[in-house]
């Protein structure tokens, strides 16, 4: 479960990191799977966790930081509760993925350069290709895939989430 409990409780936070490190036998070669598991837990890679991982693996923090910044899957900033990923692979691109991105960003009132809404509800990003090209253009909210999306239906998807959250 993704909750904010870990972030608010440092002791518990590092307990979980230790578990992850143990699972991978504190091997430096397992750095990428370790970071993946950490990110799964926190939805991003907090800086203090990165240094903790480096110390535990006995590698320089620069190495851990270097790996964390190299791969696009790793986020150094917290992400929203709902991560909206718009596929901008070739097939989606030629079928008009960019107007969809504009529509979603516009609906959420995201300022240029920002990817996460102020209330930490939504993060909007593009990905290179999700491999669901047969359904282009594709939009993914967390793990749920929506195919053959148009600007209007993309807005509707976002609005449905907002409505659902408001009624909770």
């Amino acid at each position, binding site marked *: 479960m993704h909750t904010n409990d870990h972030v608010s409780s440092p002791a518990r936070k590092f307990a979980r990191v230790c578990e992850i490190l143990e699972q991978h036998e504190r*091997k*430096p*070669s*397992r*750095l*990428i*799977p370790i*970071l*993946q598991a950490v990110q799964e837990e926190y939805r991003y890679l907090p800086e203090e966790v990165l240094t903790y991982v480096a110390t535990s693996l006995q590698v320089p923090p620069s*190495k851990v930081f*270097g*790996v964390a910044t*190299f*791969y*696009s*899957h*790793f986020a150094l900033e917290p992400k929203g509760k709902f991560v909206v990923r718009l596929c*901008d*692979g*070739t*097939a989606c*691109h*030629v*079928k008009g993925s960019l*107007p969809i991105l*504009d529509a979603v960003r*516009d609906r959420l009132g995201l300022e240029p350069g920002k990817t996460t809404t102020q209330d930490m509800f939504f993060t909007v990003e593009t*990905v*290179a*290709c*999700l*491999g*669901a*090209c*047969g*359904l*282009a253009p*594709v939009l993914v909210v967390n*793990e749920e*895939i*929506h*195919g053959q999306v148009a600007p209007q239906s993309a807005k509707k998807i976002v609005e449905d989430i907002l409505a659902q959250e408001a009624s909770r």
Partner: protein
Amino acid sequence: MNPESTRNQTSKAAPAPVTARRVIICAGTGCVANGAWKVMKAFEEQSAKAGITLHLQMKPEGQAPDGLTLTKSGCQGFCQKGPLVTVMPEDTLYTHVKPDDVPEIVKAIVEGTVVERLLCTDPTTKAHFSGQKEIPFYTRQQRFVLKECGFIDPEDIHEYLRHDGYKAARKAWLEMTPEQLCEELLASGLRGRGGGGFPTGRKWDLARKQPGDKKYVICNADEGDPGAFMNRSVMEGNPHSVIEGLMVAARAIGADATLVYVRTEYPLAVQRMRKAVEDAEKMGLLGPDAFGTGRPLTCEVMEGAGAFVCGEETAMINSIQGGRGMPSPKPPFPAQRGLWGKPTIINNVETLVHAVRIIKEGAASFRKLGSEKSPGTKTFALTGHVVNTGLIEVPFGTTLREVVLNIGGGVTNEQGKPDPKAFKAVQIGGPSGGCLTTEHLDLPLDFDSLRSAGAMVGSGGLVVMNQKTCMVSIARFFMDFTQRESCGKCVLCREGTRQMLALLDDVIEGRADANTLVLLEKLGHAVAKGSLCGLGKTAPNPVLSTLRHFRGEYEAHVFDKRCPTGQCKALAKPSIDPEKCRGCGLCLKACPVGAIKGERKVAHVIDEALCIKCGACATACKLGAVQGI
């Protein structure tokens, strides 16, 4: 059993008993996104209602003798028509199935009839096609790699075993020597399906000859090319075939450890591969004593972390070792010194699956299809502006015309309707590839012919583009991609791609002059020359290839400050034709910035100062009165 005759029987005479039937729901990413799980649930509910016992898994020995069997399959390739439901043994394929359609299908199964309205129809003759054996999309293909993907349950190892699964691995481990395996591969002429087209047998043989006990086999499933999803479909649809390929390769070079490096963007593929490894371990196929030979063989599934360059062999090795995925110079080749300094071979998913078939059926059988220098079949992901999008497999040497117009069903225009005049180009090989145009329609697709046309097979993404696609924008799209994905090691790749992108932006935004295109071409050749790995070497291809085939389009941007397709916003000058406009107000409502003014039933006008050139008005207008965008 002959499905043709069965189908005729069922439509005329006594229905086959329910118990002989099997329903297969496609559970590839595409169909799942379209609601395949809901359809599956509806089947469970409806069968219960009809009092039919439903088996959700095949028995190890085959189909259960009582009740109806319902299983899922991997991607059947016809993604656009999903969710797909197949009823066996008649091979009736229902398309676009919704949960509400399920009661009717269950009723048809009980009564031995067919729900005609859910069948695939010919768009021109309106004739119904019953299943894969009739639909032109399938009948024009020759499926080997994808053969089992469409019907076996990917999470059921027994089903794979029943379809001759692990037979090749058994043969390789118990009956053949590593030398014989490499010889067979060399004789088959199999070339790597990941893009380069390097002879697989030579790679294996080189690794085999290296001294030492510790060797590795890696399956490259880091399918990063945007617009390609062949490997994903194979892993999701038939994960055991990938493991079997690894086992054959491991035996051929004498490796005891294998690894599958999968893109993290493919969660379902990761999950199914992991399940398949577990099941193979439980059966004793993998583990400390593979096939009872006393020799160990392991298989690990590792997720990538989103870096395109990791598809390059040496970069992948660095990534597996826990570092940044940056390539290293070759030689030494990985086959000599790879993962942890040990001899390592890295093969694409599709290459490994082909190797399984070669060992099972022999090199001669493999060579029956394809061309002399590019034998066998190749899977392509057919996407973009084409009627039938999806996954296809055809022999090398098949023409582009056959693929796009016959299997793909033709090109679609901007309204999504088939239009014989809409064809403009096909982008093949993703960010490393190039464009093919109408002049290439009769070009046989294989490694060498494509290279001479300035394109490449790449991993096999085929993106069809219609007349409304701006080729400069497409070139920019790929340059933007490679520029972001450049690992930064080689200066010409890191800085050169950046400058090429800036030059393309100049073209698209109207700042270019006569010098721009010359510079773009020069720089392109320099980047190709001055880069270490395939990413940089091929990064300029999309630009150079569009410059070669669509120079006029570039020149229109540069000299006339005009985008012939109207796609480049900065050059757009939208206006409303007062002759055509009837003042219906649709564009006015659609405009997000209120740039359109006009009374009802009077021709509207666009305020250029406010217009953001989004094109919403042109989309909204039913009369085609909005021009220039």
